[in-house]
């Protein structure tokens, strides 16, 4: 069996950043396996701009952003295989992939970085009441048809879910001549970035109905109309609030889910994000297997995916060079937080610790506090935190030198 030091599964933003970082730390024997015909992942279809503000202090389109990393991969001569789909991995880090040229190939890696991205929650997953006609499509698939293939899926569109892809597609389809009738969102707040609400909905007079959902899909073969109803605090439809929209497309932007089938098959422990549970170096609970990007937790800004990818590449490079024994402590969160990544920090702490989390609902004018026992190791005032925007904070390593107990992250009054 062929041996490779580092195999990276998925050649999107996360995977490329991990590969470049590991290379720059001296790892030469790297292989990126990518199932699509090009590197870059989901950014290939994100032709709008807004990428790179943190990374390059510039507003780039998705393809422009990804090309800078493709160039870096190529400059370094990092090997990658396209249209090569990973079928399986084992705990011992044997990777099985398939492509047309080589067939099904098994390789042995010293370390693996999982960077497989995410998939869209579908209509089936939320069991929207009513018929199941053609015309119900996820926003990302509609985006691919439009931006990659050049086809519009419909002309009268209702969007369920206010995730960013849905918002971006509301604008994109309007510009292509479709009529977007409304966006409805189950929660009392939007799941998209504020700037997308302003630039994609408000600028085009597209109404956003918060606390509303689809109470019925009508149309046996082809979508004919949807019924939108308001929901109460328990998300039950309120009778008498129904609005009917005749439409040919119901576009769903109801959430992204980390794509982790390969990890599930090897019983890798996962968290409430559905991604793997990781240490601060992005190593999963399975020795030598790392994870980063949208397959770990869904990001809204690609720049942070890139940073996380580097972190995983750094972790994998260190692991390959010299595997260190370490202890670990859990990072606990209070109920205001939906999750935190990483879930464990290795001890003794040798590097600054970056924590990423999302709040469950909008929180105003509070502070985020991290404690070790009773000692405050980090504290920062936050004027607003909303579920759609990931919070990132970094704790200096000096503060974490003698930790012996779990760290606790909480939201407190100022």
């Amino acid at each position, binding site marked *: 069996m062929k041996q490779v030091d580092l195999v990276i599964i998925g050649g999107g933003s996360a995977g490329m950043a991990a590969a470049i970082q590991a290379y720059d730390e001296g790892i030469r024997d790297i292989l990126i396996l990518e199932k699509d015909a090009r590197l870059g992942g989901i950014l290939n279809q994100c032709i709008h701009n807004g990428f790179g503000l943190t990374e390059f202090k510039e507003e780039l389109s998705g393809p422009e952003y990804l090309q800078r990393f493709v160039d870096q991969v190529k400059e370094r001569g990092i090997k990658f295989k396209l249209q090569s789909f990973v079928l399986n991995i084992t705990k011992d880090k044997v990777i099985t992939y398939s492509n047309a040229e080589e067939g099904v190939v098994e390789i042995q890696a010293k370390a693996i970085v999982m960077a497989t991205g995410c998939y869209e929650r579908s209509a*089936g*997953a939320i069991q929207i*009441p009513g018929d199941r006609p*053609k015309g119900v499509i996820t926003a990302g698939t509609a985006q691919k048809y439009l931006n990659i293939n050049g086809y*519009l899926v419909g002309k009268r569109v209702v969007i369920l879910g206010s995730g960013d892809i849905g918002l971006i597609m509301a604008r994109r389809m309007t510009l292509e001549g479709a009529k977007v009738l409304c966006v409805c969102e189950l929660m009392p707040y939007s799941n998209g970035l504020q700037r997308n609400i302003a630039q994609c909905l408000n600028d085009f007079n597209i109404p956003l109905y918060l606390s509303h959902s689809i109470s019925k899909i009508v149309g*046996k073969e082809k979508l004919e109309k949807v019924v939108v109803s308001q929901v109460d605090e328990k998300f039950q439809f309120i009778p008498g609030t129904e609005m009917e929209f005749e439409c040919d497309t119901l576009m769903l932007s109801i959430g992204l889910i980390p794509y982790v089938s390969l990890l599930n098959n090897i019983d890798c422990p996962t968290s409430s994000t559905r991604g793997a549970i990781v240490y601060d170096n992005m190593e999963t609970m399975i020795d030598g297997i790392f994870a980063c990007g949208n397959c770990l937790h869904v990001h809204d800004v690609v720049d942070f995916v890139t940073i996380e990818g580097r972190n995983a590449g750094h972790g994998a490079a260190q692991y390959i060079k010299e595997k260190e024994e370490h202890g670990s402590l859990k990072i606990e969160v209070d109920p205001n937080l939906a999750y935190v990544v990483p879930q464990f920090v290795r001890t003794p702490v040798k590097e600054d610790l970056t924590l990423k989390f999302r709040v469950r609902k909008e929180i105003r004018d509070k502070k985020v506090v991290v404690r070790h026992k009773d000692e405050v190791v980090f504290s920062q005032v936050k004027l607003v935190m909303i579920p759609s925007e990931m919070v990132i904070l970094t704790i200096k390593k000096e503060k974490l030198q003698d930790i012996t107990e779990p760290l606790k992250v909480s939201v407190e009054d100022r």
Partner: protein
Amino acid sequence: MKKFDVLIIGSGAVGAFVARNLSKYQLDVALLDKENDVGNMTSMANSAIVHSGYDPVPGTNKAKFNVLGNKMFDKIADELDVEFERIGSLTVAIYENQLPMLEDLAKRSEQNGVEVKLLNAEEVKKLEPNINPEVKGALLAPTAGIINPFNLVVHAVENAVDNGVNLFLNEEVVSIETKENGYVVRTRKGNEYEAKVVVNAAGLYSDKIAELVEPVDWKITPRKGQYYVLDHYKLGLVNHVIFPLPSEKGKGILVSRTTSDDYIVGPSSEPVEDPSDLSTDSMTLANVKNQAKDMVPGIPFNQAIRAFSGNRATCTRHDFVIESAPHHETFINLGGIESPGLVSSPAIGEYVVESMIRNMLPLKEKANYNPRVRPYYHLKKMKLEERNQLIKENRDFGEMVCFCEQVSLGEVKDALSRSVPPRSVKAMKKRVRAGFGKCQGGFCQPRILEELAKHYGLDWTEVNYDEENTNILKENVKELK
């Protein structure tokens, strides 16, 4: 006008097996369906259980054909290359007062000639670690199995067509004229087909089709069944088909693995006016969830990837109607084929041909009849070397197009090269499973659409999701207008 010896209306499981049995003989046979694919109604939306036959009332058609059909499945699955596993069923008693009912069922099984075994609570828990720990006992029926229902019908029709049967899709029968030695069948598109013998296998519409010839004393009163499908997250949630005790409303809500290692939970049972109403509703599904949890408390419903429903052709006679029309011997009605209709279909097909049509037409065997379909490719079951040999011969088998279900381009093209090729994205999904997984086609649909367009020489905007005129794409925005 096209002339046939036998014309079959409906390409569900029942029509498919009638056609396949007829294809052994030197006859001109037509198989008509109103849909854009074979088996596109009840035969694709059911529990897909090859029931053992322990519960139908002894002496009924249901009991007879279920037991006969079950015995045929090893051979059928082999000849038609369909995934089939005899995983056995467990009918569980959760409450003390249900135990006598289990014993009654055991007696009924004996009358039906079905092998069963009564198990105590400990034995059940050993077989099914995730069962409700309150379980009091169960009836094990080892001959029950699970089948891939989509492939069962497609492959049966493919085999029939390979042996000479003529398939006509998108042909809805709207009227039937009785002539001296046969019938003239007219379709909505205005086509006419003449046949000496007509077999009505129109499922939910079998009463309507029967009435086109003469009144009958039975009627279809459809009952809907709603389900959840859970992703193949982990094996071992349940190892058998788990049934509650049956009631007059049906077999109740079951939990089972499917042949593709998903889990299926359902069906509900409620009357529905319109046989084509396949909508689902939240209240019924919530109910399905609760009842299933009563048997298997830990079902991970957050792994649900789809809800769907199918309608049972429940008949006022409460049994399968398998008989000639009252005054037209050569017009054969197969009505009310509700559950256990799928498992019974091979036995019904054989009976209709060998015990009914044999008395109407001379049946001369074809010399070149082949009961087997051209073998399908089962990449996942192949050894590495075998698989690589295949890819060497045809590189398309190395290129994956559906990631959730791991389907290769080779399998997609193979489906298109067969005698009952898929004409829509959904028909492809039924054949190769592309789009059946957790992303529900989000990733692979554009690729599948591309292959269909290429194969049929269509523009992308002409490729249908399912029926005619269900094109997924509205317009090409790059084209100059």
